[in-house]
């Protein structure tokens, strides 16, 4: 399908009819490209696309190329060529423009004479050009005299460089959360069905171990574990509870 088959009926200010006919009359210069609103053609095409609901890629491409070419042609027509510009300016207009520029220049040329005269008339007045004596300046490092002993500054900085003693935090009690110990126990049980308490938690401090034992009791109460201990203070073997074991333990 080519652009000639494009069923695009235009109803523009300047032209009413199919798109291919518009192209033909523009090319034959029967319709002036300068007067033609190309935006209207594009809008009409977009509306046509919406109505049709589908995009013929080949036709759309050809349409874009054509519109782009027309736009370029139109923009060239709208820009005046260098010779045209000169032709457009009538001798009267040219003189008026020249006159305006001359008058503007004359204004500043006259002002410049006044400035030159003023410059000459003022040249006899001489002002202090030397800077203020150093001791009178508001900020002058060179002229500043020492007020403080540098050793005092050194001592102050030295104090800052000594590391302060460690802060005693012995009064702060460590806390162990039962909840966290339960989570630790369940984590271990998830990876294997039974474990030795000392092997798993023997490295923890006494308080943590105690709370973990408390956690064992809690899990036992909930029926999640059972354990075995052959003798008093002997190793504890913790096992994940099976329904059977719970029954037995209970």
């Amino acid at each position, binding site marked *: 399908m080519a652009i000639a088959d494009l069923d695009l009926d235009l109803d523009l200010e300047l032209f009413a009819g199919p798109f291919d006919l518009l192209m033909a009359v523009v090319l034959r210069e029967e319709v002036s490209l300068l007067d033609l609103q190309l935006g209207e053609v594009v809008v009409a095409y977009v509306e046509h696309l919406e109505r049709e609901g589908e995009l013929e890629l080949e036709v759309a491409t050809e349409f874009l190329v054509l519109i782009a070419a027309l736009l370029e042609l139109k923009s060239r027509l709208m820009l005046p060529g260098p010779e045209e510009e000169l032709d457009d300016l009538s001798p009267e207009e040219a003189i008026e423009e020249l*006159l305006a520029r001359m*008058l503007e220049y004359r204004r*500043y040329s006259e*002002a410049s004479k006044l*400035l*030159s005269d003023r*410059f000459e008339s003022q040249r006899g007045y001489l002002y202090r050009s*030397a800077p*203020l004596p150093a001791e009178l300046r508001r900020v002058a490092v060179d002229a500043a005299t020492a007020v403080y002993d540098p050793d005092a500054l050194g001592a102050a900085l030295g104090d800052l460089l000594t590391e302060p003693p460690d802060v005693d935090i012995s009064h702060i009690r460590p806390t162990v959360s039962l909840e966290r110990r339960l989570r630790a126990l369940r984590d271990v049980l998830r990876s294997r069905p039974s474990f030795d308490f000392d092997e798993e938690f023997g490295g923890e401090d006494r308080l943590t171990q105690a709370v973990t034992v408390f956690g064992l009791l809690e899990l036992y109460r909930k029926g999640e574990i059972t354990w075995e201990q052959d003798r008093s203070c002997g190793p504890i073997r913790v096992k994940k509870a099976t329904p059977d074991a719970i029954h037995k333990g209970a």
Partner: protein
Amino acid sequence: MSDLSRTIEALLFLSPQPVPAADLARATEATEGQVAEAIELLREDLAEGKRGVVLREVSGGFALASDPGSEEAARRLLSKPRTPPLTQAQAETLAIVAYLQPVTRPEVARIRGVTSESAVQSLAERGLIEESGRSQFGAAIFKTSELFERLFGLSGMDQLPDPSRFDPSPEDERDLRERLLKAGEQRAEP
């Protein structure tokens, strides 16, 4: 002369820049009204022709300057020759900057009808104009400097006369137009 006048005279003697009245009031812990009064006394005392220094109101402040009568001797003492007078190009450029500031060099060139690079540069070197930023197209923007006001004896830029007073009279404008028309006709003749 009052104590305040004497103090102000001393401050102006010490200061390398013109001192605004407000600064004088702050330094002397006096009101601006008292300062204005003291300045008037000082102005009478240092009127031209009376003493070796004169009181001048320049660049938004007050300053002491040497009396013009002592200029030659001062220049000999300080081995400081007169700077050359302004060239026509410099004076025109300076007028355009002074009246249209802030202004770019292309704008100066447009009005003068010739490139004005060297005039702008010389004025900048003489410290009469200075760069005050860049236009949106990157051209340097110029304005007049504090030195300009001091050297031209202006207490502020509003002291410059209205530029419309330089505009030619309607008769001059008519003459100019006729001369242009005649010149155009002569050129059109084969």
